[in-house]
């Protein structure tokens, strides 16, 4: 099994750390993983993305042109990455901030209203964990136990108090996924 995922959005949406938790979860489950961020000069406002590969085999190239799954969190990323999903692959997005919805017919599409959910929780910082939850719902490739372990590993000690809140958010994410189309 190999899952080649891109997560793409604004810099402040927690894209990189979501990828990191995903990757760490894979590690906890004894998978091979790679996490390759886009990186740029500090100046804010740009988009950020990260390629995460989870696999049971040795990972060749950490840099990919096409993806099994794209998690897309803003319009720019939609414009850029929708076309790079492999036929039969999966697109997951939050419609908040996305004007032009995906048009491809040959991929599975899911919607996660994560921003709205985060608003309900009253903590915008849980946004990326809700998205993660949604992803896990669609692809239960890592067990929840391992996700929590990954979460622990990827957060510095001093932030461990935030784990329950994040766990909560992930679980919420599991519940709010909407299937748009499947192929």
């Amino acid at each position: 099994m190999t899952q080649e995922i891109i997560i793409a959005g604004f810099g402040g949406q927690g894209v990189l750390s979501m990828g990191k938790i995903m990757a760490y979860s894979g590690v906890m489950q004894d998978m091979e993983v790679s996490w390759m961020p886009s990186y740029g000069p500090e100046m804010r406002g740009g988009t950020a993305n990260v390629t995460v590969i989870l696999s049971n085999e040795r990972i060749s190239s950490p840099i990919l042109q096409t993806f099994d799954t794209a998690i897309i969190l803003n319009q720019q990323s939609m414009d850029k990455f929708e076309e790079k999903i492999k036929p039969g692959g999966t697109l997951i997005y939050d419609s908040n901030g996305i004007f032009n919805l995906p048009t491809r017919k040959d991929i599975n599409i899911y919607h996660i209203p994560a921003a709205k959910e985060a608003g309900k929780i009253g903590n915008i910082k849980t946004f990326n964990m809700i998205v993660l939850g949604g992803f896990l719902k669609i692809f239960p490739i890592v067990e929840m136990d391992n996700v929590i372990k990954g979460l622990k590993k990827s957060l510095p000690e001093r932030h461990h108090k935030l784990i329950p809140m994040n766990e909560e958010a992930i679980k919420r994410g599991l519940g709010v996924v909407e299937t748009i189309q499947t192929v």
Partner: protein
Amino acid sequence: MGELRLMKGNEAIAEGFIRAGVDAYYGYPITPQSEVMEYLMLEQPEKKTGMVVLQAESELAAINMVYGAACTGKKAVTSSSSPGISLMQEGFSYIAGSEVPAVVLNVARGGPGLGDIQPAQSDYFQSVKGGGHGDYRQIVLAPSSVQEMYDFVSIAFDLAYKYRIMVLILSDGAIGQMMEKVVLGDQIPRMTNQEIKDKYDSWAITGRTPGREHNVITSLDLDQENLERHNHHLQAKYREIVEKEVVFEEYAIEDAEYLMIAYGTSARICHKAVQLGREKGIKVGLFRPITLWPFPDKRIKELSNQVKGILSVEMSAGQMIEDIMLAVESKIKVEHFGRYGGVVHSPEEVVIALETKIIGG
């Protein structure tokens, strides 16, 4: 088995510095490798091993701090990325001329000039032919995974001390920035001053204790006959390294009719490209030089008797291909396929290049 972590290449190598018992890191920020110093500053190795971490005022200062520390037999290291490495060329030449052990990391990016901050392999010539002045060499190791970023630190220092030479770890932005699993080894204790004195007193600047001549580290010899003699000594050392220290890795070579040669990130891409090629029925293998200098030319020459053509895959406009052609002695077709300026090949396009440039060409 050691401790398992998910780390960036830059972090893994920084942890590698600590655990290899490095005495001092001197560096200057530059993307895409600033995490090396940042990690060290956060980890505060001075509290764990006594390792010193200092932000220098420039790359020039950093390499000369390393040079100074290295003269005293201590394990010293710096890291930078392409433009910063260019500024260190005088220092590299001094380190070579005066024969001190040192390790330098280049997390290369696109050039020339300020270029961009994306991964590139266009500093190959600078690394293996010598970007500084004079006839000198430095050992060049090319890691292609985060694990190797970590592992190569000890290897680099072993070589550096064995030959009193500089070892350059030539990585790139992809390997520096990506996270992978890495298994960390145990902490190697830093050598004490006494141990250094016992081991390296024949050359290291440790203070002239009674009973020995004063030690001098210099690359100057105003008498050209002497300087030539010194150069002969250096060349002999370099020949020994060429003889003994070549390292490479092979993948799907046994029945290969075609060969890709690539290092570092490109080798990762090619690993996949080989799989894709084989899926298409092309009997292609991958040869990965791990030491770029000394270059594995003997083995490549051997392989050139087996295969019908070689594709050199590099994130550059074509540099390593010269060394391949020198090795192959034009018996078979050798072509370069490069993406550069920070662009990384896709495995798919590598396969196409193989098909058009080598097989069909």
